[in-house]
């Protein structure tokens, strides 16, 4: 599912230079001041900045960015009306731009009033002497400077939000560094990274935003480093637990509802005119998708068909036949609305264990195959036998279904390189968490988050057959499905309309339905 990018991680390029400073002993300070102390690395890029001013310039850049982002005014006038200094003299350029923002009296909000002097802080900072400002090292590197050091210098500039952002940005950088260490196999450095991150985490707000996501990723990384890549404990969550989490995920955010309703609409349209229909569901769970379909079939012009439903699900322990219970409930619903209904449950712990004869498909009936986020689990390549995805796709094809509905996450989490996977997952799941926050507050949210957290843990900390969350983007699925003999069917405008209405009902900001060459993405 393609998600709206709410860009929590955006705009961090200016932050990197501010985290690069580290303290140097005073003797070096004198030496550098006597030289022509233009910073060498930036000079290579065409910018002339004094090494002594690097920190100041970086802070100004950050503040400029905040001001630009928060500015209510139209920024285009900045491009046409103002006079800019030569940007290669970076310090004065940034100052001139900042002065553009300080002049209008209507935007004082982005500058924190210095509590003691009660003046806008910008003018103060330039003139105050900062005798203990640390000198900048010639080689700009990602030194993990502790936040306290920066605070003593910045006590005039108590820009709280920038500090929060800074920690968030720093966390992200540290996560990337740690992941890189893991990929290289340098576990000792990775462990020290982890400790630093956990320390940093205490200073960041972990209730929402980047702190929360980072917390989950740190957990997943530590699991990978300390428990190895088996990661069996995550997947060992019982089927019952999974069902509960899935249910809360269904409630808390619109993704699953969107998936169900859209798939139902497609199946309904495909079954138009047929009297004997059979639906195969690859993951029955609580069967929440099917009441709506049963109701729609009951009300279709021409009367309801005979509906058979085959639900596949994991075998339940302690003798309780959850599949059969769900089937009974669905049957009762169907009976109330006068739809002839038959249910069959197939218990299988993995999808590749299911054989087509288990489904008992009648040649005269029209078949629909419905897979909600199940096919990606089959993508683990096992060199001993045929790739499971191809096996499954071929037997689905042999059933000759009228329609096959596939719902998958729109993400690229199946790359062979760990770092690439990690980066993608970080981006994807932080957007996912943001979208969850945009939904109205419900008690389900915490459990929905645990559901997502399990996915994260699987993507990051498992390998081989234990890693089942192997998401792939739409284009790859398209190729794979057409390779297996399926022709893409465009979802009609009815489906789009229904999806938009459903989204409006959720009254959450930032969601939108998009059509992507016949597929709907949320």
């Amino acid at each position: 599912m393609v998600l709206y990018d709410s860009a929590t991680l955006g705009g961090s390029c200016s932050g990197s230079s501010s985290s690069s400073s580290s303290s140097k002993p005073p003797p070096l300070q004198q030496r550098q001041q006597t030289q022509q102390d233009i910073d060498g690395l930036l000079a290579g890029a065409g910018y002339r900045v004094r090494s002594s001013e690097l920190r100041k310039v970086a802070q100004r850049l950050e503040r400029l960015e905040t001001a630009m982002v928060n500015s209510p005014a139209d920024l285009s006038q900045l491009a046409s009306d103002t006079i800019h200094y030569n940007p290669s003299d970076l310090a004065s350029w940034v100052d001139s731009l900042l002065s553009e923002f300080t002049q209008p009296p209507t935007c004082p909000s982005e500058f924190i009033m210095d509590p003691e002097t009660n003046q806008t802080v910008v003018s103060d900072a330039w003139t105050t002497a900062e005798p203990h400002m640390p000198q900048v090292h010639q080689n700009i590197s990602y030194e993990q400077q502790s936040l306290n050091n920066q605070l003593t210098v910045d006590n005039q500039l108590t820009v709280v939000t920038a500090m929060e952002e800074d920690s968030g940005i720093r966390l992200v950088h540290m996560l990337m560094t740690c992941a890189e260490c893991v990929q290289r196999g340098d576990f000792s450095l990775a462990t020290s990274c982890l400790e630093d991150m956990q320390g940093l985490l205490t200073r960041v707000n972990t209730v929402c935003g980047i702190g929360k996501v980072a917390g989950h990723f740190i957990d997943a990384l530590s699991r990978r480093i300390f428990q190895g890549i088996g990661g069996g404990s995550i997947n060992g969550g019982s089927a019952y637990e999974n069902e509960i989490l899935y249910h809360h995920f269904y409630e808390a955010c619109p993704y699953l509802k969107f998936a169900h309703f859209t798939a139902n609409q497609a199946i309904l349209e495909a079954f138009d005119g047929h009297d004997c229909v059979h639906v195969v569901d690859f993951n029955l769970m609580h069967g929440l998708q099917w009441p709506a379909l049963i109701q729609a079939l009951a009300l279709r012009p021409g009367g309801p068909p005979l509906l058979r439903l085959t639900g596949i699900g994991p075998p339940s322990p302690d003798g309780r036949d959850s599949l059969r219970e769900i089937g009974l409930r669905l049957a009762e619903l169907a009976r109330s609305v006068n739809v002839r209904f038959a249910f069959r449950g197939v218990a299988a712990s993995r999808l590749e264990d299911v054989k087509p004869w288990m489904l008992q498909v009648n040649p005269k009936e029209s078949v629909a195959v419905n897979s909600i986020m199940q096919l990606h689990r089959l993508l683990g390549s096992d060199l001993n036998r045929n790739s499971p995805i191809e096996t499954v796709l071929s037997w689905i094809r042999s059933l000759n279904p009228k329609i096959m509905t596939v719902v998958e996450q729109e993400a690229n989490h199946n790359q062979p390189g760990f770092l690439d996977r990690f980066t993608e997952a970080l981006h994807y799941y932080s957007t996912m968490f943001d979208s969850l926050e945009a939904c109205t507050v419900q008690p389900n949210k915490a459990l929905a988050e645990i559901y997502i957290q399990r996915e994260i843990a699987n993507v990051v900390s498992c390998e081989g057959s234990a890693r089942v969350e192997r998401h792939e983007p739409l284009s790859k699925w398209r190729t794979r499905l057409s390779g297996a003999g399926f022709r893409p069917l465009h979802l009609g405008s009815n489906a789009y309309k229904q999806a938009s209405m459903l989204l409006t009902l959720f009254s959450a900001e930032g969601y939108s339905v998009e059509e992507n060459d016949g597929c709907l993405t949320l």
Partner: protein
Amino acid sequence: MVQTHHCEDHETVGEDKEKRPKFFINDHVDILIEILKRLDGRSLCVAASVCRLWCTIARNDSLWENLCFRHVSPPPSSVRSVVLALGGYKRLYTGCVRPVRSRLGRVRRASWAGDEVQLSLSLFCVDYYERLGGSNSNGRLVGESSPSSLMFLCKPVNV
């Protein structure tokens, strides 16, 4: 004598008045129903608190049916049996149609009225299904959760 005259006068005046029959709405239930049929949801609920007769009438599902499908033309015919099986029109209205309409009202387009009802019906069905689960089995399946698939409709949006 005079008094009786007066009384007679009064009585004749009164009789004139009484010749016009006093109109109690409660005596004419069919008219009452026609009026109540045209009310909106909130007024109908208020009307149900007027007196026992009104309460009984307002509880009648056909009034709520009218309320649900008022904006939909032509009114769907076969829906009745389904809706009654799933819990009745009043429940459909209060649980699904009203919140759906109020939330979609901002972006209402003329063609959506029928689709709104369809969507409400689907959501209503899911809700019925969940209620089934709670009451039916030993309840271990759905556990402690009451039917909650419509919760996203109930919670007021409080930004």
